[in-house]
């Protein structure tokens, strides 16, 4: 069919409208002598119907010439010119048909009437052109609004899904059970430390739950959660875990998506420092670079560590979440060296990010 008239039903309605419109010139011609109506109709139906068919091509003109503010003068000028051209063509077609009708049927004499009515018929042709153009612009706008809505909905769905995955991955049962085992181990030799660890674990769970409800949180809150988590890991890993933070003070208040860094920190421990017999240092740097927040997390890993399941899921989740939220405005890169791994996040600070999903 036609891009604006996807169904046959719509196409037939469109043609029907043009058949009805053909009665307008017939009306002009026959007024005030309505006996001439049938003959006038004979002369106007074909040209008007043909106009309607040819008008289908206007759609493509409208497509290539959108009514944007930048192009408005050009588009309106062109359309006015085209309206005049089409009006003249239409009038010529009416003349030709009238001549034909008169020639076939000696009983009628429509041609002189049309010649007399050209001041009315010429603007009518122009109106047909402008009407058709207006119709196509309307359809194009409705269609693009629909597409934009559908795209926004998919984007929202994707963001929601990423959020859900994140919540599911938030507190690893493995981490929880191991921590409980550590508490249990500390109870006899170091009851004070055991109590401390209970509180740390409770704080961690509480923060994970409440922070997850927010869309964005200050970087300081995200880092406090990470610190809490690392304090727990430090009790389990002991000397093996050292932490080197380099946090620029002016980054602390910057907004970040809630719990975006946490899976990266956990990865750096479980797939990194914890795989090394001697342990190692987890590094974290945050710095503001213009309108971007840069976060880097680095960790050593043992290339000969036993293969673990679920590797890479956390990284994929972070990447998907960033994409759903910022589109191409954010960057997430990973670098793998012989015995070290580094992730880098570049987050736009402009909340009016082009593809930002609504909260």
């Amino acid at each position: 069919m036609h891009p604006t008239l996807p169904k046959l039903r719509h196409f037939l309605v469109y043609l029907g409208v043009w058949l009805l419109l053909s009665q307008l010139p017939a009306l002009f011609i026959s007024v005030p002598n309505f006996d001439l109506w049938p003959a006038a109709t004979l002369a106007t139906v074909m040209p008007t119907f043909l106009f309607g068919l040819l008008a289908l091509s206007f759609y493509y003109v409208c497509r290539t010439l959108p009514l944007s503010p930048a192009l408005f003068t050009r588009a309106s000028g062109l359309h006015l010119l085209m309206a005049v051209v089409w009006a003249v063509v239409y009038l010529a077609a009416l003349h030709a048909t009238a001549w034909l009708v008169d020639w076939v049927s000696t009983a009628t004499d429509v041609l002189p009437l049309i010649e007399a009515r050209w001041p009315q018929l010429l603007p009518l042709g122009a109106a047909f052109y402008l009407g058709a153009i207006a119709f196509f612009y309307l359809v194009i706008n409705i269609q693009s609004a629909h597409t934009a809505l559908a795209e926004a909905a998919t984007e929202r769905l994707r963001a929601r899904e990423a959020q859900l995955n994140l919540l599911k991955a938030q507190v690893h049962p493995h981490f929880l059970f191991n921590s409980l085992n550590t508490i249990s181990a500390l109870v006899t030799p170091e009851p004070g430390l055991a109590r401390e660890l209970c509180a740390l674990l409770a704080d961690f769970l509480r923060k994970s739950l409440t922070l997850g409800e927010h869309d964005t949180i200050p970087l300081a809150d995200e880092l406090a959660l990470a610190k809490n988590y690392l304090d727990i890991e430090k009790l389990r890993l002991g000397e093996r875990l050292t932490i080197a933070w380099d946090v620029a003070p002016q980054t602390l208040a910057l907004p970040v998506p809630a719990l975006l860094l946490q899976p990266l920190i956990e990865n750096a421990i479980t797939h990194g420092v914890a795989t090394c017999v001697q342990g190692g240092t987890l590094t974290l740097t945050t710095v503001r670079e213009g309108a971007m927040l840069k976060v880097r997390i680095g960790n050593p890993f043992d290339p000969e560590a036993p293969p673990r399941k679920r590797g890479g899921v956390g990284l994929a989740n972070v990447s998907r979440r960033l994409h759903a939220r910022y589109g191409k405005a954010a960057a997430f890169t990973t670098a793998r060296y012989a015995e070290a791994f580094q992730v880098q996040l570049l987050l736009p600070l402009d909340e009016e990010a082009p593809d930002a999903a609504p909260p």
Partner: protein
Amino acid sequence: MPRPPELRVLIADDEAPARELLKEFCQHHPDLIVVGEASHGLMTVKLAQELQPQLLLLDVQMPKLNGFEVLELLDQQQGVIFTTAHDQYAVRAFEVNAVDYLLKPITQGRFDAALAKVRSHTGVPRGFDFRALVAASRPVGVYAERLVIKDGARIELLSVQELDYARAQGDYVELVSGKKSWLKEQTLQDLETSLDPARFVRVHRSFILNGERLARLEPMSKDSKVAILKTGAQVPVSQTGMQKLAHWLTQLGP
């Protein structure tokens, strides 16, 4: 009343507090002597060989080698109690194979119960097949990424990508990579189930071939062919092996 004989125990866990906890539980049994503590897989194998413990308290997730890999490298003379925090595949494997295991956090009561079970059978539980345990601990569709091999006192980790072919040698398999080869106590059947069928083909009753090493095929006799590898090595291909190889080659195509 006769005292039960002494039981030499080796504790393997990468977390110091977890080891301390197990030591504490052991202290409630005067006949248990903790002879050593290991903080990673390689150390566990080394200490187990040196100290010859009768009971191994073995964590699943450890640096260097995991608990299953450790078990593969030991002589299976000692009793084993696995400890794990949460690993659905490991737990399923233990249940299927009736191996004693303790879920973290561990309590004295559960520890005592597991110990009693170990005492009731000397050494390895009857009918315990550690290879079946290792196979069951692997999720469906996940294959071995590396093979652990004991080479005298050394432990070799051979990435499966480096394996050219494997050959059955009695109770052992010979693993060949370039000019090097190792013997591992394993059946070819067990090895085959642990290897990714998208890469490895059982081309003969006694041979598994890394398909990516295949250079060409030459006829050997009326019913059989010989595969020439990129390294120049030759691997016999039986009639059914030929069918499998042809199937594999078509699967690899677009």
